[in-house]
């Protein structure tokens, strides 16, 4: 038997961000995404190389830590250090949590009842991250993939490009605040849904919870003040 491995010639650009490009390829015979951090020409090349390496390392560490604490993340297949590229599992048969919520909210069907358990799952996952002192750094409903069937509430977290390990209540509060801002702007009039995330979070992250919640409130106020001043 002979099978062809390695990245195929044809690759599809899925996303172009400020820091990286994401391509879909086939690698080791498997559906794969390649996240490539490209050089920043405005930085000194030596500084750029070491910053890029450090960021890639932090991302790989956060992904590894998530898996170790039982939070689902893509499998890492290969790392090309020279090209600052991470080859990882391309999650099939999934929607972003963002798309799922929007689809459900646009309809009037039976699927509404799936949202509360789904939010509980989201809150539990973030609580697990924080109780292990892992800050995601870019929590949005676009960075959460929901596997089919949606009723199972099987969520895979992606994009750990801004993640780091930190025990402080301040950083956890900011992580929640970032999610709240993203959540309420992507899903208007969904304060009630967001409250389900927070209550499940509180169940999953009891250690130092009071400080985290008071920082969350504090950052919220700070944020509101900023936006009022302009």
């Amino acid at each position, binding site marked *: 038997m002979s099978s062809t491995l*390695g990245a*195929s010639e044809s690759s599809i650009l899925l996303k172009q961000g400020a820091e990286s490009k994401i391509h879909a390829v086939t690698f080791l015979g498997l559906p794969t995404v390649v996240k490539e951090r490209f050089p920043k020409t405005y930085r000194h090349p030596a500084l750029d190389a070491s910053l890029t390496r450090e960021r890639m390392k932090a991302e*790989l560490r956060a992904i*590894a830590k*998530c898996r170790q604490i039982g939070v689902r993340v893509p499998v890492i297949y290969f790392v090309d250090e020279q090209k600052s590229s991470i080859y990882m599992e391309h999650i099939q048969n999934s929607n972003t949590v963002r798309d799922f919520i929007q689809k459900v909210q646009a309809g009037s069907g039976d699927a509404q009842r799936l949202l509360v358990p789904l939010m509980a799952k989201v809150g539990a996952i973030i609580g697990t991250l924080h109780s292990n002192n892992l800050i995601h750094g870019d929590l949005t409903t676009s960075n959460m993939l929901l596997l089919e069937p949606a009723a199972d509430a099987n969520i895979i977290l992606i994009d750990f490009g801004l993640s780091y390990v930190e025990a402080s209540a301040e950083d956890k509060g900011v992580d929640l605040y970032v999610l709240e801002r993203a959540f309420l702007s992507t899903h208007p009039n969904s304060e009630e849904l967001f409250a389900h995330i927070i209550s499940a979070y509180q169940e999953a992250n009891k250690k130092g919870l009071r400080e985290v919640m008071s920082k969350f409130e504090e950052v919220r106020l700070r944020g509101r003040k900023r936006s009022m001043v302009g």
Partner: protein
Amino acid sequence: MQEKFVLEQFDGESVALSLFSDVKNSREIRQSIVEGNVEAGVLTAALVLAPLQVLAATVKAVHAQKNGRLRTRNVNSEIVYNMSASRSIMDSFSKFGIQDDDEAIVVVTLGDSCAQIETLINGTAVPLSGISEFTDTDRIKKVYKIKDAELSAGSLLDAVVSRIASKEFVSY
């Protein structure tokens, strides 16, 4: 009885995996490897879970060779080293490389160097698809330091492949 895979990414270079049981001369095979007379990576079958695990280690080795970044003597020893999540070369070899008392081994050959090693092995070639019969999953969990919590987030193979791929960057 070998299974062949083409590494499309590396100019169509091919890799062949074969599994042997009832091997009687592991000590002799290991000696030949030490003397540099074996052009193959030879692994203890007990720590091999699936072909994907070996291929992940092989891709890293071939990539390192092409970029002049081998950490061990050659591309074959690099495959053995890459099987481990540890950055200690000694530790990787003493766990994943062939041991003197091994009765089941997995042989990894790149390109066309296959025939020569197979004549050295005094054992029975068996289909690679039967690997699970020789796999010691408890030992795999121990060697790779995989706890039960991690297995609620994916399979044992997912955990192993992720470790191999990111071994330079993550310590376990």
